[in-house]
């Protein structure tokens, strides 16, 4: 009956095919691992512009400075990436981080507990509150509204958890050491080498048995060499002036763990499925509600870490903690880095790249003594350009169909 015998079937992956149009190939590549290319190009352009104005911009001191400036944004952006991947959004993370940082500061300073207890309290509080928001979202209130309300509620909660004098100074407390600790350059470089080796081994173990027409050289050796050069190079430059700041190391650890979970595990696959086609995910038996809660728990933990690092850098928590442009910068960073606002696409590294783009603009504007409006216009331009790229990738063609 059957027209073919399974054993005689041609392999389903064709080795080489006729050349396709350039637009299709570019668009295919961009939907895969080359999504970061336009972001990296934007970053290089921004760096070259500022470097041409002031060579001090790319000095090790300033790069080290930049790395510390972007940590909070990148940490919060990482949480936002998880929420965007399942097709939701969050506006409350920055305010939530301030609440968590304040709770941690109360535990560490006012109650005199160890810094580990304080960290645990802050992070667990962040996860609990974000989890509560997720429950409301699953109930059916759109995440935009839930977290907009959540943001306002967090600003109120911040006033509740702050003591009567409305601020806690953390100078002299171990809490201060989170941002102040510098990992010496030699140790940092050793860590970077170790990380590169682990990456190469992981890459090899995951790729060696895969079916692919691409050679192992291109799938394992080249990516591993590229990662090693970038990681060791960046760590060497950033740590050369005064060592690697502890928050930067924490951020890298968070990114590596997140990236592993998103790309290699069943949890990650289900998060992307929920963001890609919620009905299909549900029909396949994936617990959609649980995956949304899961993404918000990670957001809560990331927001808490961001708030704690921020407080540690500013040496205090106050009613103004978590206000300002942090939240919008974090969302912009996630999107600029290549995470789709429509759900289902994104990487952990998008948080870092996007935060680097936005941080580089802010840092350069400050360094050159330009006015704030230049910073605003540049950030706005990059954000809208990035979303336009995303729109083109989503619809798979450059121009909209005529309606």
């Amino acid at each position, binding site marked *: 009956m059957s027209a073919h015998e399974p054993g005689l079937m041609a392999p389903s992956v064709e080795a080489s095919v006729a050349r396709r149009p350039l637009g299709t190939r570019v668009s295919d590549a961009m939907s895969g691992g080359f999504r970061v290319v336009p972001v990296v190009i934007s970053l290089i352009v921004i760096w070259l512009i500022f470097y041409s104005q002031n060579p001090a911009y790319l000095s090790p001191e300033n790069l080290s400075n930049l790395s510390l400036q972007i940590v909070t944004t990148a940490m919060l952006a990482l949480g936002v990436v998880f929420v965007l991947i399942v097709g939701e959004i969050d506006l409350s993370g920055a305010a939530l981080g301030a609440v968590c940082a304040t709770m941690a500061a109360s535990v560490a300073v006012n109650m005199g507990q160890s810094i580990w207890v304080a960290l645990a309290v802050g992070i667990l509080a962040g996860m609990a509150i974000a989890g509560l928001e997720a429950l409301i979202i699953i109930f059916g209130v759109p995440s935009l509204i839930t977290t907009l309300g959540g943001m306002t509620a967090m600003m109120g909660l911040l006033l509740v958890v702050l003591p009567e004098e409305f601020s806690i100074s953390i100078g002299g407390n171990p809490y201060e050491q989170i941002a102040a600790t510098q990992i010496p350059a030699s140790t940092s470089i050793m860590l970077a080498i170790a990380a590169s080796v682990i990456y190469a081994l992981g890459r090899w173990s995951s790729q060696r048995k895969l*079916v692919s027409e691409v050679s192992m050289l291109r799938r394992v050796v080249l990516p591993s060499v590229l990662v090693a050069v970038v990681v060791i190079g960046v760590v060497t430059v950033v740590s050369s002036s005064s060592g690697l700041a502890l928050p930067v190391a924490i951020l890298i650890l968070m990114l590596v763990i997140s990236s592993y979970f998103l790309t290699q595990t069943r949890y990650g*696959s289900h998060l992307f499925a929920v963001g890609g086609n919620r009905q299909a995910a*549900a029909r396949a038996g994936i617990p959609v509600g649980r995956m949304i809660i899961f993404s918000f728990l990670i957001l809560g933990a990331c927001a808490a870490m961001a708030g704690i690092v921020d407080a540690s850098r500013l040496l205090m928590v106050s009613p103004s903690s978590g206000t300002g442009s942090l939240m919008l910068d974090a969302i912009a960073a996630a999107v600029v880095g290549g995470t789709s606002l429509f759900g289902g696409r994104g990487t952990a590294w998008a948080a870092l790249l996007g935060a680097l783009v936005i941080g580089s603009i802010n840092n350069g504007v400050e360094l050159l003594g330009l006015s704030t409006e230049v910073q605003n216009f540049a950030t706005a331009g990059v954000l809208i350009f990035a979303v336009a790229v995303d729109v083109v990738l989503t619809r798979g063609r450059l121009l909209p169909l005529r309606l």
Partner: protein
Amino acid sequence: MADLVSITGLTKYYGGVRALSQVDLTLHQGEVVALVGDNGAGKSTLVKLLAGTERADAGEIKVEGQSVKMESSRSAVALGIHTVYQDLSLCDNLDAVRNLFLGQEQYSGIWTGRRLRRADMEAETQRILGSLSVKLRSLNTPVGRLSGGQRQGIAIGRALVTRPKLVLLDEPTAALGVTQRAEVLALIRRLKEQQCGVMVISHDLRDVQEVADRVVVLRLGEKVAEFTAGQYNSQDLVGAITGAHETASGGVA
């Protein structure tokens, strides 16, 4: 043949509209049952009830003699009922491997964070897609970038990943070319050889006559006729579907 799924008195209302009324139906292992009927006959409703996406207002569903409650898609999947939806239900952002194994991934232990066994799944994907003669440029391409036929192949291939007891196919040949239609019908026969129960919903009476061992006709939410292969002709079928000759439904169970 053992009773795989038996349905008695299944009824479903949408508001005041009775979409399905007192339907009795038995499905067996290794048997292909076609469900036919005009638009609004209740075919899709019956599939939704069996797939767990809707709940019945009255009636009973038994799987292998056990009375079951269809709470959600998850309970249907857990009971071994696999549905291939007309809209295919693929995640366009994920590649063929991840779509094929969606919700039924192969993964390593908890200490790796349930790491996907990608190599095993890729090999299995190649085998399954090869057996359906679905050709892909790369297993890593998001399925949103594939052609309609490739997507249909992946949606149907999902039914081969686990060994479900019952496969429901909602209009599986509706959007296919001649060759692919033949492939789908061949797949249905292969499912049958594997002792799966198969229920096909189709508008295409050629499909029905080619693969079905039994044909169940619904009209306005009620089961009006049941034919056994070889004991009916096209006119009987059309007559039962349209209600042109009520009394001709000689095969009513």
